[in-house]
């Protein structure tokens, strides 16, 4: 099981701070989140076919997926995925 930690709008959309999901990679995790939690879709997805993500921050064990393999970033048991939007106000 992968632990997904959700913040801000993602926490609001899912109604939970943390969910556990079986996924072999980020693509599968995003698809499962989308199908299970409809309200998350507008915040997470830019396009469904082909799958394209909004400019959010997705970290796998503290590393941005954009410096790993993007949607194809592999996930294994006990990985921690954190999802949040970039915020820049001051």
């Amino acid at each position, binding site marked *: 099981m992968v632990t997904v*930690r959700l*913040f*801000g709008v993602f*926490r609001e959309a899912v109604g939970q*701070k943390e969910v556990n999901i079986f996924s072999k990679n980020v693509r599968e995790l995003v698809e499962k989140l989308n199908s299970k939690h409809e309200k998350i879709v507008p915040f997470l997805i830019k396009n469904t076919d082909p799958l394209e993500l909004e*400019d959010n*921050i997705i*970290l796998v*064990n*503290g*590393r*941005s997926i*954009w*410096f790993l393999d993007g949607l194809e970033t592999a996930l294994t048991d006990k990985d*921690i995925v*954190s999802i*949040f*939007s*970039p*915020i*820049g*106000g*001051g």
Partner: protein
Amino acid sequence: MTLTNRELTRYDRQIRMQEFGKKGQENLKKAHVVVAGAGGLGSSAGIYLATSGIGHISIIDHEAVELSNLNRQILHWERDIGKSKVESAVEKLRQINSDIEVTDIEKEIKEENVLELLKGADAIVDCMDNFHTRFILNDAALKLNIPFFHGACYGFEGRATTIIPKKTPCLRCIIPKSPPEKKVPIMSTTPGTIGTIQATEVIKFFAGIKPLLTSKLLIYDSWYLTYDLIKIERNRKCPSCGG
């Protein structure tokens, strides 16, 4: 750098902390900290850096005070509307603490002038309201090898992390892509909390107190009243620090 009798009295309550003591206070007195942005974050960070006795604070901003700033930018008051933010901020900080040096730099931070603006700085506090300038400051901090105390707000949510060049992830390790710039909603108190956390990190850094918010991103959610820490790692492919 020795402390005067007045300073020993002024900072007595913090000097009484064993881990901080006179040595910690002397270290704050020696420090030159640049507060980049005199808005919501810059107001609360600036006030606490001044009250704590940071020896030299420079405030950089190029905007003027507007009515819509006053819900959160507590260094600016109704009478300051139309005045330059640095002028307004520096005037208050000098009244808060006349034992420290406060410099106003009324300039827009750009790639071509950032190193000049940061000349002599020992640390940068990121109190900006846009990613473009944050990334310029992030890269400058890496180049100058000085710590960069990041903070940001949106609505009831705030973030903070402490970046130490070559040791911790930089801002671009966490946020590789610049999101589009737009006016964002901010609850009045959010920058108060985050700016205070940034100032606390600066104080701890110069006093040598650990742990710091290094390699960790703090996510503060005042709607749910939660503080979460996310572990963050350096990225070897980062275009700014190269991990």
